[in-house]
């Protein structure tokens, strides 16, 4: 009897599993997707910092914002729950995926050749304009917004540590000294104490900072300095990468992105 029960429950388990492992079109799931669906959650690394609004908005212990909404929409399309791991930096978000703790990172990550040695990147999901926070009395004639090399001078450029912008500054300011800061507030202190001449930021962080600092201004860089941010995908999950690219490019994915952008007033 016991044996019979075992067999019966095994059979029920198997049929339940088989049932759950079919796609909405009734086709078998491929390996990567199947393992996600079996596990029941999509694990997403998100770097949370107060300078990241509206991409990430910290609301007590809750994370909100565009990146979180996109993660939720993607998990829903996959038919699984969303599990968020908070990363402590951009590099940490990449590392969480590279080490297999998370499936993907949706965290304004720039695709760089160094990172691509460890992880896959989707096509860009947002084009992030870049700029420099400077003192209003800084001589901006030293800067050129529309060439790849912004300045040949030996400036001191503040940039967030553990971010792709460290690499970016080395390209855009070949003779500059990089002054790495742990967070943007520290960077602002460096700027106010004349420890650096300018801070290299994305436009969103820049706008937020200068709103509260009357002595500072944002020097916007031109179209050659747009940072296409992408989603990071585990290199063990090529099928998930292929799926994400198709989803982001589908009409459904585009409409979702437009709706979620509107929700947080992201242009």
């Amino acid at each position: 009897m016991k044996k019979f029960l075992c067999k019966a429950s095994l059979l029920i388990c198997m049929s339940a599993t088989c049932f759950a492992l079919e796609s909405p079109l009734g086709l078998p799931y491929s390996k990567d997707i199947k393992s996600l669906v079996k596990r029941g959650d999509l694990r997403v690394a998100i770097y949370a910092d107060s300078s990241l609004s509206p991409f990430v908005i910290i609301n007590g212990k809750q994370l909100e914002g565009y990146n979180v909404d996109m993660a939720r929409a993607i998990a829903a399309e996959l038919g699984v729950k969303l599990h968020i791991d908070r990363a402590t930096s951009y590099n940490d978000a990449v590392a969480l995926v590279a080490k297999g703790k998370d499936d993907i990172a949706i965290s304004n990550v720039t695709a760089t050749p160094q990172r691509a040695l460890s992880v896959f990147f989707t096509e860009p999901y947002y084009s992030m304009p870049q700029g420099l926070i400077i003192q209003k009395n800084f001589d901006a004639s030293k800067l050129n917004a529309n060439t790849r090399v912004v300045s040949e001078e030996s400036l001191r450029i503040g940039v967030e540590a553990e971010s792709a912008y460290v690499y970016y500054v080395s390209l855009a300011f070949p003779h500059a000294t990089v002054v790495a800061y742990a967070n943007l507030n520290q960077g602002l202190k460096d700027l106010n104490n004349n420890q650096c001449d300018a801070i290299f930021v994305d436009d969103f962080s820049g706008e937020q900072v200068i709103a509260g600092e009357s002595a500072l201004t944002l020097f916007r860089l031109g179209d050659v300095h747009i940072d296409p941010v992408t989603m990071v995908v585990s290199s063990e999950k090529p099928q998930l990468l292929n799926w994400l690219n198709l989803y982001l490019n589908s009409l459904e994915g585009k409409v979702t992105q437009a709706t979620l952008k509107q929700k947080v007033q992201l242009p």
Partner: protein
Amino acid sequence: MKKFISTVCLFMGISVTGLAQQTSLGLPHAKDIQQIVQRGELRVAICADSSVPPFIIMNGNQLSGYDADLSQVIATHLGVKLHIDQASSYDEAVSFVASDKDDIADSNLTASYERAFSVFFTNPYYIMPLVLVAKNNFDTSNFQMAQEVISTSSSLNISALANSSNLSYIKVAFPQAIATPYTDLSDAVQSVKNNEYDAILLDKFTAQQAIFGEGSLSIFKLGPAHMDPLAIAVSVNRPQLLMWLNAYLASAEGQAEQTALKRKVRLE
């Protein structure tokens, strides 16, 4: 003597195989491609349910068209024969690849993310515009066809093939409209003429066929957001073949070989 001959044969066999396993540059093949080369054929699923010219042309049981021609060119580049498995529906063609019965499906397939739960898709080899077929006096002046989401009156009735990606597409692109499935295109065309449906959502080629000889019907173009990317489905166990196909499609774009293939079936 017999033993000697079989040794020689074995030796020749090995060297022939050894030769065949190298690329024209004298390099070893990547694993996925080596398996196909060793097997001697590329297995391709094509939906042979009906003619969808110029991609799939059925003449009795004889299958031709752009997809079959493209598959032949790909097999030739890989140095193997072409084996076609005829599927009875698009989803069955995808399922042949999902179950590894076939290596690829080259079958007028829309690269949809729902299908990508089960297979890889290459980059698109053709971008197919979607259009509406409606009566000549169909009034589109209040629609913003350039938008991703096109607002319409709530009584607008748009039809699309039952169980197709176009039917679910209506719900996203025309959220206010009523999406009605049809099973037979000529019945659907009749329904438009009888004012039962306001329009049918079709790809450009099917639309041209649908209005052929129908003086009261016209094609209404949608904006650039409304395109179906046609792509080759690839087994998820063949990532190297996927990479190779993407490299081939990128390098062949606009080259003489592709131009000739397209000209042959009058694909623009």
